[in-house]
Structures are given as structure tokens and as C-alpha cells.
């Protein structure tokens, strides 16, 4: 029996992703520190991320509503294990905390980084606020993270 041989290939590919009309408007808003959701005229659900279509009502979404940059922490966790970041090919630093945030004026939740780790102030129901970067590029990274307030 021979020693098993393995063959390595490095994936380094790039894709040109189209944002779609709704996400383009959303991203433009981020540059100005503004968050907007699309509201379904039929069921009233306010969607983040904005998208073309309500899957429940099977209807196009067209009505924009303003969403605050403060909200409620619905869930949180602190990831301890290193994982590869597929965008950079390098491991992401640990630990890092992520949470599900229900922003004021939205009905879906947003998953994003949290400013602090540890079960001190991180709890379900905590008030959180977006920490914006000073230099913004119209991406979700314009929000650096969410921090617990009050």
C-alpha cells in the first residue's frame, strides 16, 4: 500500500456580482449613514435586506421605509474557533461576537458583528446601536459593528 497522495489546488477566482436594484439603493443609503427597508404592501413585513419580492405574499416589493440604526439584540454568540475567511484566504481572528439585531422599523433581523465579547452586557433584549465608520463605501462594512447602549 502506497502512502496516500493528495493534490492541492488554490482557488483564486473572482465573480462580478450584480447588486440588484433594491440593494443598490440600500447601499447608496449606507454611504449617507441611512438604512432603508422594503415593506410588503400585502402583509406589511419590512424586509432587510431589501429584495425584489415577498416570498410569503408572492408580490413585488416597492415601498421603501426608513429604519433606525438602533434596535434590539435578538440573539448573540461569541465564536471561539478560527475559520477561514473565503474572501481573503486567511483565518479570521477569534474570538469575535456576532448577533441578530432587529433594527427599529424592520421586521427581519440583521446579522452583524458586536463590539464586545463575553456575557457581561450581551444579552437577548439588549439595546444596540450601529457604530458607523467615518469613511464609508456603501457596503455593509460601513457599519463596523453594533454596540450595546444604555
Amino acid at each position, binding site marked *: 500500500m502506497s502512502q*496516500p497522495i*493528495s493534490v492541492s*489546488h488554490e*482557488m483564486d477566482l473572482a*465573480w462580478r*456580482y450584480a*447588486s*440588484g436594484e433594491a*440593494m443598490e439603493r440600500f*447601499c447608496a443609503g449606507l454611504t449617507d449613514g441611512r438604512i432603508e427597508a422594503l415593506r410588503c404592501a400585502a402583509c406589511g413585513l419590512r424586509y*432587510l*435586506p431589501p429584495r425584489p419580492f415577498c*416570498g*410569503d405574499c408572492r408580490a413585488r416589493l416597492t415601498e421603501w421605509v426608513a429604519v433606525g440604526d438602533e434596535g434590539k439584540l*435578538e*440573539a*448573540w*454568540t*461569541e*465564536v*471561539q*474557533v478560527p*475559520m*477561514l*475567511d*473565503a*474572501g481573503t484566504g486567511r483565518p479570521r481572528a477569534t474570538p*469575535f461576537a*456576532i*448577533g*441578530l439585531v432587529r433594527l427599529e422599523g424592520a421586521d*427581519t*433581523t*440583521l*446579522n*452583524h*458583528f458586536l463590539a464586545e465579547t463575553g*456575557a457581561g452586557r450581551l444579552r*437577548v433584549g439588549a439595546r444596540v446601536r450601529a457604530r458607523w465608520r467615518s469613511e464609508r463605501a456603501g*457596503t*455593509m*462594512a460601513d457599519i463596523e459593528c453594533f454596540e450595546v447602549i444604555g
Partner: protein
Amino acid sequence: MRPVAIIGTGQTRHSKRRDDVSQPELVREAAAAALADADLRPAEVDAILISNMELFEGRAFPELWAGAGAWAIGKPCLKIATGGTSGTSACIAAFHQVAAGCFDTVLVVGFEKHSEGHTQAGMALTDPYWDRSVAAGALGNFALSVCQYVQERGVSERQAAMVAVKARRNAAANPHAHLQLPDLTIEEVLASPVIAAPLRRLDMCPQSDGAAALVVAGEASARRRCRRPAWVKAAVTRHDKPYLGDLDRRLATMRTLRQAAAVAYRQAGIDDPVRDLDVAEIYEPVTYAELAWYEALGFCPDGEAGRLIEDGVTAMDGALPVNPSGGVLSTNPVGASGVIRVAEAALQLHGKGGARQVEGARRALATGYGVYAWSDVIVLESAA
């Protein structure tokens, strides 16, 4: 739908790293085992369905290379992938192809070689405009969902640990299972490191290299070839919205599983699942999910899942043994995991469970879970 049945199943040895075999060779192991079990020659297979999450191994069209392992060359072969439900989706596709009269026998093979790629990174290849830079793989997703579920239902760490112990002890009776921890205790689970609060290492499924296969046959063939065919009584799929944040309190609500189960139970004539089912193989990627699925599948009222595990209802000697195989918590080659659920459910009805056999099993449930909230529910039954 015309009657179709599962007449043979087979699996590889599952482990952290199967670097002794290539992808086609891994597929071959499972396919050969299933054909041997069904007493079928490769030439008698009419069509093949492959299940695999291609990007976990960095592949496009993985069946092009691996299909030869399933004797697929010169035959109809397709690849199905729907995240964690890939395997159950492929099984259901086989049921449909046979019931349609297109084929008499279809071989389903699911496989994954997580060791060849980066599953957590692959899982994080989500919407690049929304959460790709934040996405934290299956672990992060589950931790967030579990955080909410625990808050809402008051399930304890200890109850989750009991699921972990049940799974790994059951796995000890399954020679194919990846994790072999026959003596695991609740205390050891509670002492294992927290990897994403509240999840501990032993709350999570492993990443396995492995493959599983089964043979689906039409009515006449099934009767001729199999002593106790596992007839398909229901096969229901429900998908849901695409983003992690789309569904409110997803483990507690889990509307896809609830609705799929309700429809499947109606089709299969099941009123009380704990009474009417003999065994269940459910797709529980994390301990807490098994508790949530107990509720969604109607094994107990909402909020009583913790009591169900404490009372031993789902233990091997309980009223409804859940995951005699050790479940996803013991073995998880994603593209194969759904096939394993269905194969293990069928194997129980075939009476070939060996040390993990549930005596006299006549009606079995198998479920698939994928991409945050997708569900497949399958009910199998051996003839009365």
C-alpha cells in the same frame, strides 16, 4: 403516487479524513454496499442520483468525476443539491423518477469529503452584498438560533447534553458512525469547551468524510427482490426564505418542518407520531435542534422537549427511539447526511439494524434539514 420502496442501503466508513480514497472511490464503496444489500448487479441499475454540496470541495458538477464510482457511465445520472437537505432531496427525486415509470431501479448516492475543502468558509459564501463578511458558517448560525431557542423555551444545557450522550452512545452500536464515544457522560459534555456560546464542542455535529447509498425500486421489483421493502408512504418538501434573519425565532417556529410533518403524517395516516411511528432518523446538526425538532415534529407539545429527553421517550428503549444510528451528531458528511437518515430508517424496516435495530420496527420517519430552515419529511413503512 405509484408505490415505490427502498430495497437496499449501504454506507462507507465515515471519518474525519478518508484520504485513502478519492471521491469516485468513496462513492464506489457506498454504491457497492447498497447494491450488495439489494442483491442487484450494477447493470440492473437504471439511473443514478448523486447528492453533494459541490462548493465544499470546490467543485462544479462533481458527478462528472465521481459518477463513475456509482456505475453511472452510460446511464442517466443527475446531481441534486439543496444544502443540508441534499440527500433527502435526492431520495425524493428518486421516488419521483421511479413512481413516474421512468425507471425501475434508481441508485442514490450522497457523499462529502469535508477534509478536502473548507466547509465553514464554504458555508459563509452567502449574499456578498449582505452578510458574507459576517457569516460564520454553520456554527455561528446555529449558535444564534439556539441562543433564541434557549431563551424562549428554557431548555437547559443539561437537557442538550443528554441529547449529545444519547446520540454518541447510539453511535457506538453503529459500525459506520464517525464519532465513537460509547462511554460519554453528561458531565463530559458539559465540560467540553464552549465554541460558540451556548454551544459546546460536544453539542455540535462533526465534519465527516463519507458516502451513503440506497436503491429505490418500483412495486413489482421491490416485492421480488426484497423480503421487507421499505415503502414510501409520504415524501414532503418545504423550503423557506433565504436569509438567516428572515425567520423569527427559527428553531422555535420551524414552520417548514411543522407543515411538512403535518402533510406527511396525513398522507401516511399518522395521528400520534410517538405512538404510530416505531423509529425516527432526524437531521439534528446540533443537540438543541433535536429538542426543537421534537416539538416541530409533534413528538411533544412546545416547551416539553426537555422533558421528553429526560423521560427517555426517544432513547433506544423508549416509546420512539430517535436516531439509533447516532444521527448527524455522530456522523456528518453533508451531501450524504440526508441519504443516511433515509437509509437508516429503511434499514430498520429491513430488519438489518444489527446492534442498533429497533425490534419490530414497521414504520419509520426520516427528515432532512438544510440552509437555515428547509425541511424534507419522509415516512417509510414495511408491509402490514
